[in-house]
């Protein structure tokens, strides 16, 4: 109900912003900046980059307001811009994990029918900092597209349809990406389960 109301108000604000009313756009920024910042932050894993891209997202949105057709909600449209910006940045910097994880023994079998089984538990005795470091490293191993679906599905609890709308791809692509991203994270983090 709350979402519906906010969507209705968004529509009115978007109409005013299109006519050049920057105070309406200011309200739209205030309304959505936290969500967009968090989403980008989850993807790029760097506070400064997240701030820069949040600004960039709103600037791009302003420039493209005429192309916003109202088919999806304004927030979904913002998410799509933000996700693309974050993917572009991840591709540019090709950030690899700070800590290399030996993947050789855990390679994913392309034809595997089940999630690969976890290796022995070298994580015994890992403290919280170490677990966090492992998770950050594993997450950095994902491609930007795979990160986007993991963030949207597992952290932001979006439905498949919402993810497809926010990324701008088909439902099948979302499900396929999610399948591979989960499989890879399972391989990289399976041994942490007993620690958790």
């Amino acid at each position: 109900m709350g979402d519906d109301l906010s969507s209705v108000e968004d529509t009115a604000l978007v109409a005013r912003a299109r006519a050049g009313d920057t105070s309406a756009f200011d309200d739209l920024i205030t309304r959505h900046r936290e969500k967009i910042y968090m989403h980008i932050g989850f993807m790029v894993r760097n506070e400064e980059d997240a701030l820069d891209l949040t600004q960039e997202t709103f600037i791009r949105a302003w420039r493209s307001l005429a192309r916003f057709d109202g088919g999806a909600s304004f927030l979904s449209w913002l998410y799509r811009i933000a996700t693309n910006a974050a993917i572009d940045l991840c591709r540019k910097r090709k950030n690899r994990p700070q800590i290399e994880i030996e993947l050789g023994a855990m390679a994913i079998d392309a034809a595997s029918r089940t999630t690969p089984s976890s290796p022995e538990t070298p994580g015994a005795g890992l403290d919280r900092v170490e677990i966090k470091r492992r998770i950050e490293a594993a997450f950095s191993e994902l491609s930007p597209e795979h990160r986007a679906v993991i963030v949207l599905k597992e952290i932001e609890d979006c439905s498949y349809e919402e993810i497809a709308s926010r990324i701008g791809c088909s439902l099948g692509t979302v499900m396929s990406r999610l399948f591979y991203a989960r499989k890879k994270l399972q391989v990289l983090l399976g041994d942490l389960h007993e620690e958790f």
Partner: protein
Amino acid sequence: MKNSDQNEAQWDKTRALLKAHLAVPPLQHPDFINIQVLKSIRHEGKPRAAVALFPLRWLAWSGAGALAAAVVLTLIFLPHHFRPRSEGEFISQVIEARAEMPQLSLSSFHTPDERGVVLWIEGSEFIPASEVVR
């Protein structure tokens, strides 16, 4: 596709780990975003080629009209001998799938209506349009 319950349980643990540890620092000085964005867009002026919202309203009314028509047609044509089906009775499912070529990988999921099933192959080679596949 076997051991799916076990995989699901394992993934729940991984999901919990991700949620617990992939934190993002809260947005400090949120108004700073507004200030920076507005500074930038005021230079640019009005968004280009703004259009009226008529299409949106038109779409909403069309959607509501179509929905009403669909309800009426369903009530007229719904067979009287319709029998409720038990949940999961008529759902297709991939039990097992194996790619016979190493470059292929497979995943499977249900269609949005939950009845059909999709087997998604990645890595199969591109076929030029000049080749006949019919």
